[in-house]
């Protein structure tokens, strides 16, 4: 009896929490379908409005969100793939190679966890500007290709792999490159999936750096596109802005939902067999 009451209260609490968490986005969606008159009618309406298709169309075309999404998608894929490849290789060296100063190298890589882009934004701006990348995707991709997080996760994963696997590969005649590509890489699917979520979402949500470095609108990223929708001198049409918010939320959310079950698997390697 007591446990039943407990269970019901858990359900109630969960439902309320889930609702509160979803509330802002639901509201955003509802208003994204309304005309300005509907939005600023008093009292407000909580039903689907008359401008659903029109608002999304306007956000997509007139505010160029389509273009920004395409840019961001390209950049996110490039950074995610590059980062995974590069940190995978680095971790392979740190675990499976006999090289001097291994510990030093590991610490050298790990220390960069304390140096997020934002902290040196002034100097990084100068540097990337000197490279002449201010109008190119390079500025949004190259500085992010190496990753302490990625290297660290891969390293932890590799340390859990039975050493005999390396031995077996060697006996079977696999050289270091074959070993990395044919054995280690396919064995790391969980970490790769987890990193894909982490990095894709990270890039998708980029804000300060593209705001500062990118001058050419046609190269801009989606979140800044959203910002530009509300900083004009014009009267903002909030229905369109909310449509923009919904649009710029969906792709990251889709990737996350698709791969989220790997997130914990990849992050908590300790519980893996």
């Amino acid at each position: 009896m007591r446990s039943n009451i407990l269970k019901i209260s858990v359900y109630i609490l969960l439902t309320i929490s889930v609702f509160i968490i979803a509330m802002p986005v639901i509201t955003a969606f509802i208003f994204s379908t309304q005309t300005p008159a509907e939005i600023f009618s008093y009292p407000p309406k909580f039903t689907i409005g008359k401008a659903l298709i029109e608002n999304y169309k306007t956000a997509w075309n007139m505010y160029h969100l389509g273009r920004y999404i395409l840019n961001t998608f390209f950049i996110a894929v490039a950074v995610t793939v590059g980062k995974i490849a590069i940190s995978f290789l680095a971790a392979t060296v740190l675990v499976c190679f006999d090289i001097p100063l291994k510990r030093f190298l590991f610490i050298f890589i790990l220390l960069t966890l304390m140096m997020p882009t934002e902290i040196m934004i002034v100097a990084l701006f100068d540097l990337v500007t000197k490279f002449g990348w201010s109008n190119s995707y390079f500025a949004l991709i190259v500085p992010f290709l190496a990753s302490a997080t990625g290297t660290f996760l891969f390293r932890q994963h590799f340390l859990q792999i039975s050493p005999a696997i390396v031995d077996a590969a060697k006996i079977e005649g696999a050289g270091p490159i074959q070993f990395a590509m044919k054995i280690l890489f396919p064995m790391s699917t969980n970490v790769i999936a987890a990193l894909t979520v982490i990095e894709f979402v990270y890039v998708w949500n980029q804000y300060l750096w593209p705001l500062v470095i990118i001058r050419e609108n046609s190269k801009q990223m989606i979140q800044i596109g959203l910002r530009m929708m509300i900083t004009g001198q014009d009267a903002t049409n909030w229905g369109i802005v909310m449509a923009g918010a919904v649009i710029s939320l969906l792709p990251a959310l889709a990737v996350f939902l698709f791969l989220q079950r790997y997130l914990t698997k990849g992050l908590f390697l300790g519980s893996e067999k």
Partner: protein
Amino acid sequence: MAEAMITLKNVNKSFGKNKVLEKINFSIRKGTFTVILGASGSGKTTLLRLIAGLDFPTGGKIFINGKDVTQEEASKRNISMVFQSYALFPHMNVRENIVFGLKIRKVKKEEIEKKLSTVTKMLKIDNLLGRKPSELSGGQRQRVALARAIISERLICLMDEPLSNLDAKLRSSMRKELKSLQEKLNLTVIYVTHDQIEAMSMADEIILINNGKIEQHADPKTIYENPKTIYVAEFIGTPPMNIFNINLIKNSNIKLPENAEKAGVRPESISFERREIKIGDGEIVFCEYHGSETIYSVKVNETLINVKSIEGKHTIGEKISLYCNREQLLFFNREGRKL
């Protein structure tokens, strides 16, 4: 005398200050089944890894087929290996696991298929080819690991405690299978184990190592009957050989070798009936009934002596006298060497 397939000369290995192997010298003939036997931490696995080329000696030389391979990488040594954990690649199915090495060496497709079907039929795993290692039982994994080692058709196969993860029943049947496979394919096998029964039942030769040194290198019969040291005597046999102070039998009218400090006798060689030598009177403090035989622990003065007997009628507390024949006694000097 067949040619030496593998030869180690003065091989040393240390990790930092820690000496793991010291002055290892031996030769292994082609087509023999050699077991490297030793307690855990004795250095036997390190020795195998040196032969495999997974580790490299600190000193000395290793020859395979007459060629100095001391600094050669594993893949160049023309050997195959079976691991204790099987080391199957978890992301590949059985087929991919078995043919991995052949693919790396770019063997032709038709040839791979032919070999694969022969080997998997031989090991009765031809129905498992599509499965992932996680979907296999321990015994099946073992066979896949074996298949992977065999398919390369390399003459030397190294095995690192390959049966230790199987249950007892499966282990004994696999022993027979392994042995007959080795004979059929005329493989040179080096087999590392801590299990003396495996060693005795399969080996053509046993290399017993202790503390990084070879205690004895001989065939199983010699090792059993003629152990070179007390360590060997006590390592082999269940229960192991009884070793006691020579004083216990000093009053028997037999001539003892000079410098003899300790004497040893196998439990099955001790009798409750009068023989040439009386070991002493004692009291049964423990008995372990095995059906066809019974093992009695008899306390003689302060020494505990195991007796293996087909008689099961004695009970705990019974006073009893122990005897043996002269030729069944072995004598050891102060250093534990046999005289």
